[in-house]
């Protein structure tokens, strides 16, 4: 068993077999509920990395996650976890799932709940309890883990959900909206924990609606739209691949009117707008604008103070592609 | 001039109005809740059936329609033995409401649908938070729920007998029924209204105490059927028929209603029945009060 928890001893991680390069693989997977299509022709290859899953609600994100955990069977194609078909029992040991549900088994304590989940993975009662205690203590629940879950706050519930996803030492975890309801500090802690997972040989697929937050967490994003993968890759790559969408650049200049008058003459500039002490320039995406800007900045003392690309983030890419 | 009506403020539209005028909106909302769904309308129509049955009986008895058993048609000639089949006595109008079958069964259906689920359902939908923040007090809320539910139930248990009696009074050959029975019938209507109010209150109490709508429905059914069954068992085992009305919530209500109306009944204890209803109400009130505090609903 690998131990995915960052703060756990390194010995366990060292003893673990080297993680396979491909943790989750979707091969042309489609899923229909009756005649209703939830996913169509989705192919994914996720290794030991953090991948963000974004899309509007009802777009097939949870179907995708359930397929990966083996809770659903694909109508077409195959889903493999570490090379094993996802619906096999052996695959269950390699995957952890942190679902987006508020309710847990309320009367149980944190330890009982996690241990109960571990029993499904074939742990003996004593081993399951031990392991549940270790994992929950690692996640900072040491003082509360014997109390019933119904007394837990949102942050504590979230940690219990995370604990049951990680406790059996999976090589791949799926986190569905893990940040919902957490306060800013709990969010930061959780983000740090997730970031540490690939170093321990655990791949992560995480969904979130807060794109600014997700962008700083993930290596790549997968954008789902109407059951299909609409885009996949690093945010900057995706931005550059957008077909001739004008970029918007905000330039803070000492004399914005003068700068606007100069910029409007450059090739590659399709629009200029004054906004108080700044100028918003729309460009067609080529390098010509930046060359001219660098030239001007170098020859105009104190002229150009700041250059900020306005739509380089995930939210803008999402807006362009999905709207 | 271009009007931006979204931005045109309408100050003063929300003024501080009396608690009652605000609660009336809630009563109204609650009253119409049943008729919003097709199921609700269907159940309501079903509950009118016993009343319709009596209407047909009246029509046959007074010769408005010419079919049915001759015996029934001839009943009027020599006043029937059974008081419940004699339109000149209030028992005729009380019977379809107060009997165990069909009265209790239909009342149970209606109360479960209208009253038993209402507060438990609000609790789950977090409506309480919306109400409290608008200055509705728990007591006012419970009262509005009770009144709204009572009005719906009373349509079946009070209005239907009253309409039946009016029909009979106008179908009769002369005005004797109207003149002689008016006072008795007024008492009967009052009695029916009182026990309907009590039953509604008990049902509402259960709705407050129970956590989920279904639990409240089951608890209410169990209370009605269970108490009736226990009463029957004790009464038969001890050969004391009056015990029946001291256990059964339904029988107790029926006994009280008949006593207020002055209808004939044997082997009953009116004091025992009243005590049963009062105890049940009191216990539920004590249980329900802490469950409907403002802080309780905001957790």
């Amino acid at each position, binding site marked *: 068993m690998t131990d995915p928890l960052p703060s756990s001893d390194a010995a366990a991680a060292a003893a673990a077999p080297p993680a396979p390069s491909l943790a989750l693989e979707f091969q042309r997977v489609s899923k229909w509920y009756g005649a209703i299509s939830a996913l169509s022709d989705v192919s994914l290859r996720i290794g030991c990395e953090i991948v963000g899953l974004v899309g509007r*609600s009802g777009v097939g994100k949870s179907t995708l996650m359930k397929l990966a955990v083996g809770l659903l069977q694909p109508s077409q194609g195959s889903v493999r976890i570490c090379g094993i078909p996802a619906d096999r029992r052996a695959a269950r040991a390699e995957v952890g799932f942190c679902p987006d549900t508020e309710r847990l088994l309320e009367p149980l304590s944190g330890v009982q709940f996690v241990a109960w989940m571990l029993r499904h993975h074939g742990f003996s009662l004593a081993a399951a309890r031990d392991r549940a205690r270790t994992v929950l203590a690692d996640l*900072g629940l040491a003082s*509360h883990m014997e*109390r019933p879950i119904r*007394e*837990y*706050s*949102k942050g*504590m519930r979230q940690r219990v959900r995370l604990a049951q996803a990680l406790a059996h030492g999976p090589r791949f975890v799926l986190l569905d909206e893990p940040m919902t*309801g*957490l*306060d*800013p*500090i709990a969010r*930061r802690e959780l983000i740090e924990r997730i970031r540490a997972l690939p170093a321990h040989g655990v791949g992560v697929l995480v969904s979130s*609606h807060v794109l600014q*937050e997700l962008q700083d967490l993930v290596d790549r994003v997968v954008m789902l739209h109407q059951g299909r993968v609409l885009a996949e890759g690093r945010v900057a790559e995706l931005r550059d691949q957008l077909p001739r969408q004008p970029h918007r650049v905000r330039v803070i200049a000492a004399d914005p009117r003068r700068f606007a008058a100069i910029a409007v003459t450059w090739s590659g500039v399709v629009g200029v707008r004054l906004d108080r002490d700044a100028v918003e320039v729309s460009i067609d995406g080529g*390098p010509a604008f*930046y060359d001219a*800007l660098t*030239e001007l*900045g*170098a020859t105009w*003392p*104190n*002229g*150009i103070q700041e*250059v900020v690309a306005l739509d*380089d983030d995930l939210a803008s890419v999402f*807006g362009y592609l*999905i*709207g | 001039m271009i009007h931006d009506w*979204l*931005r045109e*403020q*309408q100050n003063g*539209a*929300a*003024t*501080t*109005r009396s608690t009652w005028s*605000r609660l009336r*909106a*809630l009563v109204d909302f609650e009253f119409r809740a049943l008729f*919003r*769904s097709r199921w609700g309308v269907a159940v309501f129509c079903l509950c009118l059936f016993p009343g319709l049955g009596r209407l047909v009986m009246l029509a046959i008895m007074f010769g408005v329609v010419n079919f049915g058993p001759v015996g029934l048609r001839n009943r009027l000639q020599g006043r029937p033995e059974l008081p419940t089949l004699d339109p000149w006595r209030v028992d005729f109008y009380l019977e379809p409401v107060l009997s165990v079958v069909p009265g209790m069964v239909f009342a149970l259906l209606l109360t479960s649908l209208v009253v038993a689920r209402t507060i438990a*359902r*609000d609790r789950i*939908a*977090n*409506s309480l*938070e*919306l*109400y409290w*923040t*608008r*200055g*509705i007090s728990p007591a006012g809320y419970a009262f509005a729920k009770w009144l709204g539910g009572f009005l719906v139930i009373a349509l079946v248990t009070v209005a239907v007998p009253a309409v039946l009696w009016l029909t009979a009074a106008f179908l009769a050959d002369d005005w004797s029924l109207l003149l002689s029975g008016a006072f008795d019938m007024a008492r009967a209507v009052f009695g029916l209204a009182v026990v309907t109010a009590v039953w509604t209150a008990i049902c509402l109490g259960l709705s407050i105490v129970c956590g989920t709508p279904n639990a409240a429905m089951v608890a209410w059914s169990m209370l009605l059927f269970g108490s009736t069954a226990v009463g029957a068992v004790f009464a038969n085992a001890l050969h004391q028929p009056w015990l029946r009305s001291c256990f059964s919530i339904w029988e107790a209500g029926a006994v009280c209603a008949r006593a207020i109306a002055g209808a004939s009944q044997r082997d009953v204890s009116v004091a025992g029945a009243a005590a049963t209803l009062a105890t049940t109400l009191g216990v539920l009130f004590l249980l329900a009060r802490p469950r409907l505090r403002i*802080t309780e609903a*905001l957790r």
Partner: protein
Amino acid sequence: MTIELQGVTVRYGDHVAVRDLTATFPRGTVGLLGRNGAGKSSILKAMLGLVRPVAGRILVHDLAPGGDLRSRVGYMPERDAHLPNATGFEMITVLGQLSGMARRDAWRRAHEVLYLVGLEEQRYRSVAGYSAGMRQKVKLAAALVHDPVILFLDEPTNGLDPRARLDMLELVRRLGTEFGKSVLLSTHVLQDVEAICDSVVVMEAGRIVAAGEVRALTRAAVRELLLVVEPATTRLPAEPATGITLTPLDGAGSGRYSVRLDPAADPSPVFAAVRSVGARVRSLAAQRRTLTEVFVAAVGAETPEPGR
């Protein structure tokens, strides 16, 4: 000033939720931040008149909680809240009437606010069948129906997908700027606060630990900029001019540099340095502290989350 708190203490049994809080909340859109159990919702409840402080005085628009204030406050609860068995229109109408509107006023106003939040197509459908996004909208409509001057919004973007989040934030921003409402926004998503709030109030353990304008709070202590050059392999001198230092970020070859400038220094040598090696400036952005950093500094990351 919109909200004044003087020595307010809120207590549930032995648990002190808010301790001797004195504060004045500014006008405009204000973000109310804090960890779970920091006392945010207790303060909201005290202002709504749902809990009575054991000590102190609360004035919202010069009115004490309860009574007349209720019709001037719109509250959007955090949890999903609706009236079962009602259509969106019926729910908003009834809630408007409960706030003291006449029936016909409530009807008219319900149509207006449902249009405003974007539910005009779904207003005659049962609320129980609404999606998460529609439920958030109908809660906002309920908070707006009686035309309050001050709005308390508790996590309005919870459960919304990226597009719906943007729409909701834009709507809240407009309520503050165009409609002139005072908005108190309680949320855990600091990016939302950065996007739409003028100022923030940070609470911890029943006290206010930081407050002020978002711009002022996120201003960095030294003038530091992030420089991105293209192509990424460009190598730049470490000190192109006096008073300017360049430090490569994420190792060499990422094309990202941290630029430190003396407060009065001229940034044009940075452009000159980039041009002299034949590269171009993609971005030169002033580094601001994120609100998360401000929050962590104010609250302290080490405090354990209080249990309930």
